[in-house]
């Protein structure tokens, strides 16, 4: 569902409960540097490099120019980071050094450009939100005396248009959302569910999934709990046992007491 969203597990900073969805590596880099005020030294580069590789993967056909560029950015980042980590040594080639500075400036310029358009996009969002509140009249002539006048109204309509129109006409109409979040706050993040489980499971020791979710009303909450359990399983702190298909799932805590929720790495679950 969520193509191209970079993994948002980010090290070098406290993980966030409301994990932002990144639209590509630049986005992630901008976010890390600007909002977290960290420098490259603190950033887990593999995330960003992974994100670049994921972008390369996404390309329908490998576009050499773009691909090279993406690789170049990733390489520059690695190089910058390596330079930050290694003790200064005098044998650095001056040309290499200058080249790196150049690459860095280029990268800086591009981040600035990217940021510029990000902010410009906010204006587009505002404009379209405003425009959406003014509905155009698209009724056309309604009087009988004009209806017959116009040349063939189907001239520019294809069978495909008709199919699309049918689909639109029969698509379920979404209901107006009633925001009741202020009445019943529902915990929907996997991170929070993990936190609860890590808090509760060591005390209880063993629990069935049914017991775990018996008080939950919302299906989404059940799903979130389930993801949290899977997460704990992946981390090796619980064991799962299911006697058969659709059987009761038993969750057994096998981690030691020192396990803390924050140490459980959460992959992002979208949607």
């Amino acid at each position: 569902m969520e193509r191209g969203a970079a993994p948002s597990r980010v090290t070098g900073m406290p993980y966030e409960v409301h994990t932002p969805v990144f639209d590509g590596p630049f986005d992630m880099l901008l976010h890390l540097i600007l909002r977290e005020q960290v420098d490259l030294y603190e950033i887990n580069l593999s995330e960003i490099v992974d994100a670049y590789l994921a972008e390369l993967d996404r390309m329908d056909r490998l576009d050499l120019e773009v691909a090279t560029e993406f690789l170049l950015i990733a390489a520059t980042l690695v190089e910058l980071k390596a330079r930050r980590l290694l003790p200064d040594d005098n044998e650095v080639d001056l040309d290499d050094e200058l080249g790196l500075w150049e690459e860095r400036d280029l990268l800086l310029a591009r981040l600035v450009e990217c940021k510029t358009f990000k902010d410009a996009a906010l204006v587009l969002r505002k404009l379209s939100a405003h425009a959406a509140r003014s509905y155009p009249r698209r009724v056309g002539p309604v009087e009988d005396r004009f209806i017959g006048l116009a040349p063939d109204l189907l001239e520019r309509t294809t069978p495909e248009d008709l199919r699309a129109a049918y689909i639109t006409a029969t698509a379920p109409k979404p209901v107006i959302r009633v925001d009741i979040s202020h009445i019943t706050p529902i915990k929907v993040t996997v991170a929070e569910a993990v936190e609860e489980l890590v808090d509760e499971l060591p005390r209880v020791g063993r629990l069935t999934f049914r017991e775990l979710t018996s008080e939950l009303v919302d299906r989404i909450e059940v799903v979130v709990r389930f993801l949290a359990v899977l997460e704990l399983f992946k981390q090796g702190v619980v064991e799962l046992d299911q006697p058969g298909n659709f059987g009761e799932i038993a969750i057994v805590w096998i981690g030691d007491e020192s396990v803390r929720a924050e140490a459980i790495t959460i992959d992002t679950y979208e949607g």
Partner: protein
Amino acid sequence: MTADHIPPAVEAILLVAEDPLPPELLAQLVGASTDEVVEVCETLAREYEVDGRGFILAKVAGGYRYQTATEQAPYVERYVLDGQSSRLSAAALETLAVVAYKQPVSRNQIASIRGVNVDGVMRTLQQRGYVDEVARDPGPGQAVLYGTTPSFLERMGLDSVSDLPPLGEFFPGSDVVEALERGLRVVPDDEVIAEAGSDAEADSDAEADTSAEAETDAEVDGS
């Protein structure tokens, strides 16, 4: 005494309406009594006339709708003949599509699929010769059933109705699903917005048009 908010609300609704709107429906939409709405409409109609507007508010088939003033007919004709507008409105196209795929179908069935009254649109389609009465429902009430005409098929370049693009492989686009889901969501809006982050990438011709979205938009605007 009529509340001030009613006249502009009535004007706005009538502006986008495809069919004449009965005063009862208008009253419900703007939160007023039917009498008040009738009074408002009559006042508006008078104002337009006094101001010498090119449009009038006409009472047609038990409802109100905007029409062009008769004296402006020559200009309107010139525009219509010009061919600039030779296209079915979205509402008409949807109605035609429902008839095409569901025929034989009654007007009530179409209205319940589209969620709006379709009398006006059906009249237009019938006048243009794209749909016609094809049968009577054998059940009680004997509703008239509609279908598409040979002239419709000809214009669409189709041999028969069975040549219409199949609907079989259709699954709601992810934006439709998402809009539906959003309609049911109770999560904070930041998250909704973040999530919407990738929906444009999902391919879907069906635009998920929702009033729920309008709400989200408004919130974005306000933040």
